[in-house]
């Protein structure tokens, strides 16, 4: 069946390139960038580069320690490294504020030494949050590189007395680090929620934040459109750089092995690297719980309605993403591959702006806020779901495609008897991933939503901008619990009774 994949590709192209066309048309195909726009572009690129460089650099000693040491809690730490991917950004921001914010752990500690308070707001807060999110990803990617070096080579190097670092590790890092840098750079280019909550002002406004402000506060659709074109160009260029650097496998498994090493020393630095990384990751997570629990006692009105909206959007987006990813995987070919990659270059805000421009003359945007959010979330999660599902579908076809052909299994019966049963686990994982990503998404909803339409992340932002941090922390805990529960339920659903 090729037509469902065609429809999915059409939808993806309409929502990415189509919305871009709409904003370009609205912008009059002319780029007139003012000083503030240039500042936003500079900051966007600069903070993304700095965040990526810091994440990759700091990841090297941590990955090396994880690669060569076996210690209590290593497996738990590796699992924890996967957590930020499904942790809602806005929830993590609450945790970071709990550690680095005014009245946070760090400032309390500094005060003991009579040192003045540091602020988490501003460019350094944006970079800090981005490193928090992407250091784990960088560690995972580089750890994969380390574990991919065959054990025989370490043995050979040891028997020759050759320097392992120069002979094996440096070439591996040179191969792996550029891809890791490019992936993180791209992620940081499109991160909106961090800039919204920790950035802002002339020195820490990203292009996406500027788009949001242009639509939401100035209602200057022309400027928003122009910035959206710029943002798409930035992301497109970064995505192409990523392809050139060799896109790494971001969702890889099998990190539970330890490289056997034969050179002595380095124990202290390994211990230090692991301890600091664990502290940096776990302290904000602990603060989410620590600050959230008291907040649960005074949850704001409208919480459960917002939760219901978030869950509805997440479930709708999950269903749509899975259907699209499956249709594209079954169709295959260049068009399908393009559709799986395009959303990486798009940003939710750009899509939202495009839809806003298209819908605004026809219908009040707030009337379709939830549907639009669902659509955009579905498309944004597509690359991740597709990367999980496409290899599984290919494997099912490679193993049993000929058998299915010889029996005449086509269309729905092929899907029912061959494909779906063979991809249950990845399907459950992809569903969990999509649901969690969509639950935590704060982007297009901020652009569209009216007063009574907040999702949980938007409710949190509203509480935070009203300085009701305790309530926001309570909502964060609820959001985190629902996200994890959805991820767990879907992922588990794919495993239960899954036949070999």
């Amino acid at each position: 069946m090729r037509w469902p994949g065609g429809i999915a590709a059409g939808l993806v192209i309409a929502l990415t390139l189509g919305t871009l066309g709409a904003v370009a048309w609205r912008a009059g195909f002319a780029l007139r960038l003012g000083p503030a726009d240039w500042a936003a572009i500079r900051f966007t690129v600069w903070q993304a580069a700095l965040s990526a460089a810091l994440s990759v650099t700091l990841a090297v000693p941590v990955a090396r320690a994880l690669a060569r040491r076996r210690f209590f809690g290593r497996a738990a730490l590796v699992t924890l490294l996967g957590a930020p991917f499904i942790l809602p950004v806005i929830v993590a921001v609450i945790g970071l504020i709990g550690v680095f914010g005014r009245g946070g752990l760090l400032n309390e500690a500094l005060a003991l030494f009579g040192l003045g308070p540091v602020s988490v707001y501003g460019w350094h807060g944006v970079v800090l949050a981005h490193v928090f999110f992407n250091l784990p990803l960088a560690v995972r990617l580089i750890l994969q590189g380390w574990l991919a070096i065959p054990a025989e080579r370490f043995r050979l190097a040891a028997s020759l007395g050759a320097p392992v670092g120069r002979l094996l590790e440096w070439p591996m890092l040179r191969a792996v680090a550029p891809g890791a840098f490019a992936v993180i750079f791209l992620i940081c280019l499109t991160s909106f929620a961090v800039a919204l909550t920790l950035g802002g002002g002339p020195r820490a406004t990203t292009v996406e934040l500027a788009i949001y402000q242009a639509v939401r506060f100035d209602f200057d659709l022309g400027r928003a459109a122009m910035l959206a074109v710029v943002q798409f160009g930035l992301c497109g260029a970064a995505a192409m750089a990523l392809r050139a650097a060799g896109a790494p496998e971001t969702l890889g498994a099998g990190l539970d092995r330890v490289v056997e090493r034969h050179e002595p020393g380095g124990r202290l630095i390994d211990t230090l690297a692991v301890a600091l990384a664990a502290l940096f990751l776990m302290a904000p997570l602990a603060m989410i719980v620590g600050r959230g629990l008291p907040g649960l006692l005074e949850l704001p009105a409208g919480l459960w309605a917002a939760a219901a909206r978030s869950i509805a959007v997440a479930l709708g987006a999950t269903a749509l993403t899975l259907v699209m990813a499956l249709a594209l995987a079954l169709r295959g070919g260049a068009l399908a591959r393009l559709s799986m990659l395009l959303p990486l270059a798009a940003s939710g805000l750009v899509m939202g702006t495009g839809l806003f421009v298209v819908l605004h003359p026809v219908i009040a945007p707030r009337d379709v806020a939830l549907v639009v959010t669902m659509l955009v979330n579905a498309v944004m999660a597509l690359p991740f779901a597709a990367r999980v599902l496409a290899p599984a579908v290919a494997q099912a076809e490679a193993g049993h495609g000929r058998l299915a052909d010889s029996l005449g299994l086509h269309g729905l019966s092929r899907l029912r008897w061959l494909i779906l049963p063979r991809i249950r686990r990845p399907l459950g994982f992809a569903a969990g991933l999509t649901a969690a990503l969509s639950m935590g998404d704060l982007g297009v909803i901020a652009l569209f939503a009216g007063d009574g339409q907040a999702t949980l992340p938007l409710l949190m932002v509203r509480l935070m901008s009203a300085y009701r941090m305790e309530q926001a922390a309570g909502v964060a805990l609820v959001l985190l619990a629902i996200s994890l529960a959805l991820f767990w339920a879907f992922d588990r659903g794919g495993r239960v009774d899954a036949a070999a």
Partner: protein
Amino acid sequence: MLRLERLEIRQGDFALSADWALGDGSICAVMGPSGGGKSTLLAVIAGFLAPQAGRVSWGGRDLTGLAPAQRPISILFQDNNLFPHLTIERNLALGLDPRGQLDAARRTEIARVLERVGLAGLGERRPAALSGGQQSRAALARVLLMDRPLVLLDEPFAALGPGLRMEMLDLAREVLAGEGRTLLMVSHAPGDAARIASDIVLVDAGRAAPPAAAAPLLADPPPALRAYLGR
């Protein structure tokens, strides 16, 4: 009658030609060195690969261009002949109807065939709960159910021990060929061919030779077959 008319198969550097016919009810072993194209020849006959030139016909009907399932052919591969996630009964049901529907009549039919291959009462199991020999029997049972006049065996029993393999070949001869079906089987072991084949097709040096009677051929092999057999 299976007829290969001036068949030309090319894949990159690989080339194979065939131009011959095989009588109905034959049991024909396809022999020759590895990489010679035995499996490729079967894949073309079954419809998984299109030939560059020539045609495949059965009983005067041109099969070229038909999908595998539309051909009067059933095939067993080296492995993956059963869906591991489905019960044996469901696997067999797919041989009767690609939609996999089961009703009382089909259940009875499946039970009858399972009994015939010595798997009575095992329909509810998944393939992993059966031994290798039992899995082969289940695959044979599906071929039996599909009831196509030409059966291709691409070494489906290769992973079994020699004794079990002989047992399966005897079963295949008894239940498949016994009802007048034509069998075309890839074989590495001259013993297999000697045991059940009436004819042998030698695939070597880019050509699938016409079928020749098995007994005289094995008794006095031509140079190519002699080289392959190591005699």
